[in-house]
């Protein structure tokens, strides 16, 4: 029985480790400035936890086999423990866990403590059951006010986010169902939700933030690769949660300018 346990525990351990190490399924290709840091911290955590995982599981299986009761077994080592050992492994674990935490905290601070710079592209992201809308302030750089009284989700576009079209600032506000961003520029998103909690998750951009009704949450990220990236809602928001899907198109600054100009032209 000891041998069976050893074989099964070791088998589970090696099989589990293999798929982590072989990266059979892995983080989606990173396309933002934060990806390098986040993936690095992830890999570091994986390596350290992997070593502990292997050591603990292999020891567990080995002990089960090695110390199985046999007629020839020596008497057990009668001991209630060892205070020195307890102190050593408590200290080591504390250093490991807290150290890992502090390293990750630097990255977290860079992502979340500071506001976006003044040159960042401004986009307002609005979540509602079960769609994302993106609003750009247009050449005046100002978002016009919106009002819940004007919201009509069935109409889509400007009406869905409740844009107050009587306001002069609304004249150049663009509302779309697909997000366009210029590459290599910081993006300042202002996240909101009109009904329940949603979460704006773009795996390739290493970006996730809940959109909470009643709050207007400012976050920033920095796309570095041209491409099309999927948005998947990451907070349970109702029966259509699984299809609350959207796209981010990261394009060159030129293409972005052309796209914006075309939208402005359509609107006039």
């Amino acid at each position, binding site marked *: *029985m*000891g041998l069976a346990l050893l074989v*099964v525990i070791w088998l*589970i351990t090696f099989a589990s480790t293999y*798929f982590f190490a072989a990266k059979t399924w*892995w*983080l*989606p290709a990173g396309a933002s400035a934060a990806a390098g840091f*986040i993936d690095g*911290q992830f890999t570091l*955590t*994986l390596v350290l*936890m992997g070593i502990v995982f292997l050591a*603990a*599981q292999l020891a*567990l299986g080995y002990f089960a086999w090695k*110390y*199985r*009761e046999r007629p020839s077994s*020596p*008497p*057990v080592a*009668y001991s*209630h*423990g*060892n205070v020195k*050992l*307890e102190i050593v492994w*408590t200290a080591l*674990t504390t250093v490991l*866990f807290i150290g*890992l*935490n502090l390293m990750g*905290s630097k*990255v977290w601070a860079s992502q*979340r403590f500071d506001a976006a710079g003044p040159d960042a592209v401004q986009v307002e992201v609005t979540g509602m059951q079960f769609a994302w809308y993106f609003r750009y302030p247009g050449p005046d750089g100002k978002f016009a006010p919106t009002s*819940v*009284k004007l919201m*009509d989700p069935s109409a889509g576009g400007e009406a869905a986010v409740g844009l107050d079209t009587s306001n002069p600032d609304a004249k150049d506000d663009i509302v779309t169902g697909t997000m366009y961003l210029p590459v290599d520029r910081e993006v300042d998103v202002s996240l909101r939700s009109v*009904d*329940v*909690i949603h*979460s704006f*998750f773009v795996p390739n951009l290493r*970006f*996730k933030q*809940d959109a*909470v*009704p009643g709050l207007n949450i400012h976050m920033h990220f920095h796309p570095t690769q041209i491409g099309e990236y*999927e948005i998947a809602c*990451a*907070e*349970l928001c*109702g*029966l*259509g*949660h*699984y*299809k609350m*899907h959207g796209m981010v198109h990261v394009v060159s600054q030129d293409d972005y300018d052309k796209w914006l100009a075309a939208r402005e032209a359509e609107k006039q």
Partner: protein
Amino acid sequence: MATSATAHAHAAPQGFIRKYIFSLDHKVIGIQYFFLALTAVWVGMALSLLMRLHLYWPSAVLPIVGEIKPEQYLSLLTMHGTIMVFFVLTTAPQGGFGNYFLPIQIGAPDMAFPVLNMLSFWTTFVAFVTIIAAFFVSGGAPLHGWTGYPPLSAIQQAGPGEGLGADLWITSIAIFCLASLMGALNFLTTTLDMRAKGMTMMRMPLTVWSWFITAILGLLAFGVLLSAGILLLMDRNLGTSFYVPLVVVNGQIMGHKGGSPLLWQHLFWFFGHPEVYIAILPGMGVTSQILSTFSRKPIFGYKAMVYAMLAIGFFGFMVWGHHMFMSGMSPYSAFAFSLLTMGIGVPSAIKTFNWLGTMYKARIRFQTPMLYAIGFVSLFVSGGLSGPFLAQPVLDIQLHDTYFVVGHFHLIMGVAAIFGMFAATYYWVPKMFGRMMNETWGRIHFFITLLGTYAIFMPMHYLGIAGGTRRYSQYTEVAYLQKLMPIHGFMTYAAIITIAAQFIFVINLFWSIFKGPKASDNPWQATTLEWTTATPPPHDNFGGVTPVVHNGPYEYGVPGAARDYVMQTDPAVAPAH
């Protein structure tokens, strides 16, 4: 202590109803809790099977239930989580085994408040009936997940099941909180007041410590959830706005103003994180007990084990914010919650080291309880080590609300806790029912279940790393998710096999209770007080004798002793810990 024990004595009941239904006997109540949890776990497991089938074959027409629609999938998910967390993970280890064995292990004739104990069980029963009723009302069961985040959970128009089903859901949880508060009071009073002569706190078995600390957590946590639940009911039905700001659902302006969705998350997780430890601490206790018994060695670092559990309980109340790193909570507080969460990993690691230390240079016997205890350690390590990923807010940017989280908590608070219950069942059924369980089938059940649970829950980590979002009824609408379907397929097949293997367990359980070989008073050659009394124990537990304790709980392999174990009631052989 002896006087307080006498004051609580009550005569053995005669009629069937007072003996088996509305019983005051903690042992009967423990068995009632056990069978309630056993019923609940089959319901919860059946729901998970339907979920897994739907995830891999989204448009399949299943027998009886037909085709599962997305909103029905979310109802299954909500009810699976709620039933498992409350009526299984909280009910069986504490209400079931704790109720039965805490008084016996400390040498008491019953719980401190037998009537309260009976009331607590029947209140739990009412809560269970209430939640099951949610399936049968118009609109069906709620779809807001076991965490029930408002506004989704607070507004009827937000989705199917958010009408009467959601009211029943939150009412059931509130009733459950009341029952748990009664239970916690009883456990605390009994442990502090009813210990036999010589049973000092530091001679209590680690199982008793785990139930005691769990009761403290329950007392502090369930009160908060109860209040939070009442506020949610008021938001839903009385037009208050604790959790709901001005929102527009389906183009309609709702009547709420100024509430905070984050307030619910804080209150819920202030309960919810300690709840994780409520589920797992008794499993830690029983694992320690069994590892020591079957290793024929004293537990390694008894005091360290007690302090580690106290530390886990204490820090357990300060880490709730790690569920909210992506919620819009201040990024500065994320820093503090993260550090404290990493801190709570330390006592958990200490426990693992001590379990390995207990097995080191031991003489291990491999009856089924021991297999499950070793399985617990393995799962606890695997589930625990994904904690330091999720404790880092920067990694939560990618991992939060993905299957990585689902894999993490299922391994550690789901199946590790379930393995604790299996270990406890195989270990204590002989004492509870006077019959041994079948070893061969026990072993077969163990190996299938261990391999099966790893096959279900380990791939969830790969799925999560690749961005696989949780609570999606199907992966058909997002291109990168479609590519991850083979992982879902593997997990679904593994789940079918693992769930099928659970029939081995129930058949073995019921067959053994009625037909198994008769158990002796101490079949495992164990040391704690439940093994000093008759099998099954008489109404007052010790047949009119009050045990006197002279030894620590885990005196195995004492050099020079007549046999390889010294019971707690034997003459003192070793200095107290």
